[in-house]
């Protein structure tokens, strides 16, 4: 329902025309947010796997399933492309390629990322789907279709593992590439002078933070609504909370590095944008909320091991971080779209305040988010909330043994 409302809002926005970029800011912010959130989460399943951390079993599905929201992203992204002003007479990443840049290429890359995400999810789910196929006696059509002829021979397992590794690696690089590319496109074509080389990196950090946060939230929800307390234990939350804290700190670090360079440099061109628009000045309150949500509160909460080692602590931090990132997106996109001056003038001379969202904007925000949640819920239902085979593998590789007087867990590390 809300999603439909969102569509309506989009229609209203469309009605007001594509010529005027200004009002589209909130729409772009929603896209940016969903993009960071939805597209980044699958990375969470890849990184612990790479580091051979054996606690990630229950986590993978929760994080990868978010990738389906990418579908929505593509839909959201397409109209945005026409809003990007022409980069004629300006040097950009595209070196003035004659056709389609940046619109065409950005679409391609975003699509590629989405396809990659779906493939990642699919390859990961194959063993489970096969199990589903077997259990339902071959009647489950979707499972039959997607699992192919997987029966669990060593060779099939090997192929599946290699597939996961390759797709995961591709996904991480792909994500950072696309994320940086889009931010580059934005900073260079939309706002003259919105220039900080920290931008792409900051976007990527935002993405990683959002990814972890989303995963935690999805995990907590699954745990709550599917009654999986026995499978999703505090162990997962504890471990991922450490990563979360590290990313919160990295977020603050990147912001600080950017801020300090600008503030110390005292070049009017930069201070107007970074200090006047993004951190202080007109939009201070927004920034302060984002800062508190993404750094101050998470640090204060996750500093303490008892809170870190709980379900509630990391979940609260995750929700806070998501809110912070959303606000960050608004700060990043809304004023960008309101720039009216000549794009060939490379400097921005005064800060732009962020206006309150109108009705269409609210509808778009709510609809966009609702659409994403809807897609994710659907995918969870279709694929199952947990990755069965990984759960089993993790259990197999973990064993308690007596060591002197204590019983300690051992982790087995296969070659």
């Amino acid at each position, binding site marked *: 329902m809300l999603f439909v409302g969102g569509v309506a809002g989009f229609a209203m926005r469309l009605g007001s025309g594509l010529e005027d970029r200004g009002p589209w800011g909130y729409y772009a912010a929603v896209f940016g947010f969903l993009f960071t959130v939805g597209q980044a989460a699958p990375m969470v399943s890849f990184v612990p796997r790479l580091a051979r951390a054996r606690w990630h079993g229950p986590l993978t599905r929760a994080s990868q399933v978010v990738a389906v929201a990418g579908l929505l992203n593509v839909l959201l992204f397409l109209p945005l492309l026409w809003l990007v002003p022409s980069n004629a007479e300006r040097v950009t990443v595209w070196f003035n390629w004659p056709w389609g840049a940046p619109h065409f290429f950005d679409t391609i890359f975003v699509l590629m990322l989405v396809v990659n995400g779906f493939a990642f999810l699919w390859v990961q789910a194959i063993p489970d789907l096969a199990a589903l196929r077997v259990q339902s006696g071959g009647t489950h059509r979707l499972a039959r279709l997607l699992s192919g002829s997987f029966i669990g021979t060593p060779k099939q397992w090997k192929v599946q593992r290699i597939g996961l590794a390759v797709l995961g690696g591709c996904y991480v690089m792909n994500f950072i590439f696309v994320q940086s590319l889009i931010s580059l496109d934005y900073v260079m074509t939309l706002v003259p002078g919105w220039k900080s080389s920290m931008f792409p990196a900051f976007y990527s950090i935002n993405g990683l933070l959002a990814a972890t946060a989303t995963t935690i939230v999805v995990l907590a929800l699954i745990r709550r609504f599917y009654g999986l307390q026995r499978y999703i234990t505090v162990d997962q939350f504890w471990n991922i909370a450490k990563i979360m804290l590290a990313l919160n700190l990295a977020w603050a670090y990147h912001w600080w590095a950017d801020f300090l360079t600008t503030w*110390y440099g*005292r*070049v*009017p*061109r930069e*201070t107007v944008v970074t200090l006047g628009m993004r951190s202080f000045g007109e939009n201070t309150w927004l920034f302060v909320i984002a800062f508190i949500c993404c750094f101050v509160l998470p640090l204060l909460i996750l500093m303490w091991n008892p809170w870190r080692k709980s379900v509630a602590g990391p979940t609260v931090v995750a929700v806070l971080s998501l809110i912070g990132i959303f606000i960050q997106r608004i700060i990043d996109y809304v004023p960008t779209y309101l720039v009216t001056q000549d794009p060939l003038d490379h*400097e921005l001379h005064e800060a732009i305040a962020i206006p309150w969202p109108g009705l269409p904007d609210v509808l778009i925000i709510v609809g966009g988010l609702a659409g994403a949640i809807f897609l994710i819920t659907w995918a969870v239902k279709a694929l199952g909330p947990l990755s069965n085979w990984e759960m089993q593998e993790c259990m197999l590789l973990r064993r308690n043994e007596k060591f002197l007087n204590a019983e300690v867990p051992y982790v087995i590390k296969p070659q």
Partner: protein
Amino acid sequence: MKQAAEGTEQDTSKPVASIGRRWGMVVDLDRCTGCQACVVACHAENNIALNLEDVVLQQRAINWIRIERYWEGEYPNVKARFLPMFCQHCNNAPCEPVCPVYATYHNQEGLNVQVYNRCIGTRYCANNCPYHARFFNFWERDLDDTHREYLNPEVTVRTKGIMEKCTFCVQRIRRSEWERRQADEELQEGDVQPACVQACPTDTLVFGNLEDENSRVAQLAENKRHYRVMENLGTDTNVIYLKKVDPHASETAPAHAGTAADSGGNSA
């Protein structure tokens, strides 16, 4: 120098650095002929080391004031443009906050001061000066007795390993100050003349108190031709240039020496 500044602020009985004094210079490019008299005068006044051939070849020459020369137009219609360049005594100086030991700071009279005995020679200020107005003493000066006789006793002879730059002839400012004070008078307009200003035959350089509305320099600074070099960096200089009046400007090139103001990157 924080304490130092505060000390002067508390000073109510007889302030030498009266509030409301900001030294500045106006350079009228329309008058500059590029004769380099200011350069010579500066060298003589401020005990600047001789830039002998080997030093110049090492690219270590020291010129507190230099005449930048730009060529304009194609042969045979070539025009030379001149721009005297020296320490701009920025109010928002990039060189000041980067010095770790407060060897360079801004004093209450708007001067960007270099304290030789405090300087340890990290050369950070020189890197950070967009005007390249700061110079480093790579060698110890080799002064024989005859040479010592030429030195201005009012000015420190810089040792190796420290930075130096234009001081707006602060020794002259101080001398005028205490000479006036001997007679219980305030400093007057025209009392202080840096060596370059004194030597300039065409009256290109005008020195004075920018805060005093009636001073010549303050009035010239309001001239509609005025601009500051690299204004976009936000350095807020105390040196103001007046653009050259060129009746043929529109016929040849749109820009002249003054373009240096527009961007940090225009090569001439």
